[in-house]
């Protein structure tokens, strides 16, 4: 698992899980607390409604009592009712309306002992209608009502009916009994007053009707609200329905107190949104952090690993960067290690070279001495004979000549043997372009060198040892890459067909954009053991030169300090058979 993935997962676990736990816990606690509060509010309103109704009912009763007092002293009323004075008929018909407005009631009707309405304030023109039994029903209902109040629906001209909280008052006038039935309208404002709190909705549900303290636009609750939608409390109030079939009916109305859960749901929604936003933000932060850590740790480590993988005794020219952090420290350590290795390798190679050269030199010294010592002895004997017996010099020479010949043969054989130490070349037809492609492919990825090839199509084959040709190309490309000194640069390999001295040659050019050389340096690069690179053997280009010459070709160099170097290798073209 990548470091980036581990960092992301860790971050997610460390941040998101506690956040989610907090969110759910908070939400749950909030829901419970608010629900309890809503229930308490509803219960409180339900407990106070009966008191409010009783207070309202008592107020109506007081107004009716006051009206009664007024009627008792009103002669015109007496004349119209008891006296039957037709001239006061209009006065009587309009009386209830005026009285209703004066006493602040919403409905008022005056009935005689037969139940006939003699004056109606809320519906003037229903006078004459008989509502038998209404007074008795109202009295009985009030008596048996647990809350001591009663509601009543009366007829209205628009057919909608008028729902009121009602009381009655009886008047004895001139031997006749009249009943005042009056009340205040149970409408939206009345219910809103019962609710007290704008968040609470008080609805009244009764047969063939209903009213609410909230408008439809404000989302008045349905009469059958579910527990999920609202907290509900209720109480029952007796209701007298007038003007129905049957004409008089005592029913039960239900006052429903509702606290919608909509604010709680809104709050939950807001909290959920907030936590979601927080989680998303945390996730994005985790991603960004992971990406940043990746760029600061994983990639440098990967680069470091890549460079280290390339590191080899043959490739100690890898440059490690620096940095102020731990990766930078590791990089510097690796760079120091590479540098020490380069130094050590140089020493070792020098030592090996010296050792090899020394061994070889000692061997050659020994072998040559072996060959030269007999020659020296013969020469000395001949010197002695020439000094002592000059006349016998020729005979002594003839006598000692086999020894000289043997030494010479020994030395020639020695030379031949030492020549055999160098590998023998195999001559085959070689496809230079194909070899270049292989070598470049193998070399790509080194340091920060960019390789480019410009290969002539249909390039004639050259006759030579493919291994030697390969060694030439490898050495040249390695040298070109090393000249870049681990900086970004370009190594180009170009093949072309040229003609020189009447002979067609394949020219291989390896160019770099490296550090370049001075003229003096360029003149010595093919010299054995000459090198400008720290830890270099100084044999690379000298081997190239030797191998090129073995192929019958030539090598040249062009260079400019800071600009780069071009090495051109010309090899005669032509197949083995032609040659």
């Amino acid at each position, binding site marked *: 698992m990548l470091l980036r993935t581990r960092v992301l997962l860790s971050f997610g676990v460390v941040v998101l899980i506690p956040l989610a736990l907090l969110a759910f816990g908070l939400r749950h606690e909030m829901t419970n607390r608010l629900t309890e509060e809503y229930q308490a509010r509803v219960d409180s309103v339900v407990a106070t409604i009966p008191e409010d109704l009783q207070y309202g009912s008592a107020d109506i009763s007081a107004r009716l009592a006051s009206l009664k007092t007024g009627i008792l002293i009103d002669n015109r009323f007496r004349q119209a009712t008891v006296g039957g004075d037709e001239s006061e008929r*209009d006065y009587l018909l309009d009386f209830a309306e005026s009285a209703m407005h004066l006493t602040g009631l919403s409905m008022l009707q005056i009935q005689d002992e037969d139940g006939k309405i003699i004056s109606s304030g809320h519906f*003037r*023109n*229903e006078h*004459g*209608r008989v509502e038998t039994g209404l007074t008795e029903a109202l009295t009985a209902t009030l008596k048996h009502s647990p809350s001591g109040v009663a509601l009543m629906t009366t*007829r209205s*001209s628009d*057919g909608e009916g008028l729902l009121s909280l009602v009381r009655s008052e009886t008047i004895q006038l001139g031997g006749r009994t009249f009943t005042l039935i009056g009340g205040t309208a149970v409408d939206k404002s009345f219910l809103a007053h019962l609710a007290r709190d704008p968040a609470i909705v008080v609805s009244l549900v009764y047969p063939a009707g209903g009213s609410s303290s909230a408008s439809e636009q404000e989302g008045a609750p349905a009469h059958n609200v579910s527990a999920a939608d609202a907290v509900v409390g209720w109480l029952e109030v007796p209701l007298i329905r007038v003007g129905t079939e049957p004409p008089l009916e005592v029913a039960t109305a239900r006052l429903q107190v509702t606290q919608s859960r909509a604010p709680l749901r809104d709050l939950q929604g807001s909290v959920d949104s907030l936590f979601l936003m927080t989680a998303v933000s945390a996730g994005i932060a985790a991603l960004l952090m992971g990406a940043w850590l990746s760029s600061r740790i994983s990639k440098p480590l990967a680069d470091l690993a890549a460079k280290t993988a390339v590191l080899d005794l043959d490739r100690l020219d890898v440059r490690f960067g620096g940095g102020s952090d731990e990766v930078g420290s590791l990089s510097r350590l690796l760079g120091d290690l590479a540098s020490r290795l380069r130094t050590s390798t140089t020493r070792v190679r020098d030592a090996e070279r010296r050792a090899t050269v020394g061994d070889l030199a000692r061997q050659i010294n020994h072998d040559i001495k072996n060959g030269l010592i007999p020659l020296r002895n013969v020469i000395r004997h001949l010197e002695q004979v020439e000094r002592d017996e000059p006349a016998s010099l020729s005979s002594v020479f003839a006598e000692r000549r086999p020894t000289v010949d043997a030494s010479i043969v020994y030395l020639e054989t020695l030379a031949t043997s030492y020549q055999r130490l160098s590998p023998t070349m195999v001559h085959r037809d070689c496809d230079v372009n194909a070899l270049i492609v292989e070598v470049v492919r193998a070399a790509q990825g080194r340091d920060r060198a960019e390789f480019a090839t410009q290969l002539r199509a249909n390039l004639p084959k050259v006759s030579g040892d493919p291994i030697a040709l390969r060694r030439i190309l490898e050495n040249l490309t390695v040298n070109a890459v090393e000249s870049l000194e681990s900086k970004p640069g370009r190594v180009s390999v170009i093949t072309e067909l040229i003609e020189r001295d009447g002979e067609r040659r394949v020219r291989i050019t390896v160019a770099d954009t490296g550090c370049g050389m001075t003229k003096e340096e360029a003149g010595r690069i093919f010299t054995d053991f000459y090198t400008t690179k720290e830890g270099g053997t100084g044999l690379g280009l000298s081997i190239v030169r030797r191998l090129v010459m073995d192929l019958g070709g030539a090598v040249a160099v062009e260079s400019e300090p800071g600009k780069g170097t071009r090495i051109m290798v010309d090899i005669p073209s032509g197949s083995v058979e032609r040659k």
Partner: protein
Amino acid sequence: MKRMRSIIGRLAFVFCFGAAWGCGARIVTGVPLESSPVPLASQAAAAAVDCGLFPGRAESTDAISTVGLAERIDPAHAPHPANESERLLFRQLYETLIRADCQGHAAPGLAASWRLDTRNANGNTWIVTLRQNARFSDDTPVTATDVVSNWMRDNGSELRPEVGRLVQSLVAVDDRTLEIELQSRRADAVLALAHTDLAIAKPVSGSLWPLGTRAARIDSTGSSVITLVRLSGNSTVRFLVVPGRDSRDLLDQGVDLLLTRDPRTLDYAATLPQFEKAPLPWQRTHVLLTPGQGRAAPSFSPEERRTLAQDAVRGPARGAEGPFWWESLSDCEVTASRPSTQTQSAAGSIVYDTDDAAAREIAERFVGIGRYPRASGLTGEALAQALRRGNESGYVLSVERRPLDPCREMLVLGEIAGWIDPQTIVPLVDTRLHAIVRRGRSGLTTESDGTLLLLPTGSIAR
């Protein structure tokens, strides 16, 4: 003596008129059968009928100087009134060719004389001659061409629709003479020329008020006061316009004249010694319109109508009294009604005009006694649409009790709702206005539609 002559004349006239009305004889009120112009003497005799608001009372020098109006006045309506207040004000400014006096007689207005053109076989063409000194209130003469242009559309090629209900065609014979072919062929058809739809006015650039031909003109207008100046004598009459307010306030503000049917105002006026009341003619009949042919329309006996008026309506009201003009339309070419295409709901509402208090009270009484389940008040376009649909149980509206042209009235009802025909009209209650007048004021005369004239009729001749 004068009073005796007046009473005898009145009785005789009523007898003749009643006979003519009942028999449908082609006796034109005020016009003999001979095709000769009504001489001024006869007109003067007709005008001798005392149409004063307080008949028999001696004239005083105190004319009405302030009038209270409880409805909105819109000069754009002039000279055709849209409410009672406009009717009163416009009547002081604009004339028709003929007036219908308090007895329903045709009396000279802008026209001095008129006669049936016996040369024309159709029997409804009249030759009308304008009075010699007829002038607009800017003193420019009124010609027959002015009358023609008043009654024509702006394009001048056809009659205005409201004129077309009464007049078929007209031609200016000369500067003072018009040949008018009426729509109606009824015996009293010439009374159609007294309709307010035919009032003459001349638009004036720069003024909202067109010029009339009476001896008065608008002097100034404010947000709530319109001042009329009498052209003879230069006295003014101020009209206090206070729509929507309690009309008792106008009495308290000291008006000389207030027309009302509000019972509270009438009761209040009765307590004010400086005022006296006079009932105006029974002007409106409230009817029940019952859509749906084939369904037996309800009917109310006179006693029931009387009880309804007594029980339901708070203002001056009585049971509707006949004869009812929609029951004698044989001389009218009235298009057959189209039955309502909507199904009447058995439990439908009874609809009334919200702006008509008496109609509301009647409708509520019907609901109160259980005749209908509910009453619905509508006004304006909503009421018009409901009438067109005709799918309610009933409609309570008010109509002219004595229209100048019953054929025209039936035509208008038919335009309101195609299903209305005489069989669907059930008479209920008559109502009228009362005039509350400051004591000592005089000069008030009534016309057949109950409208008061504040200016003496003699002022017509200037």
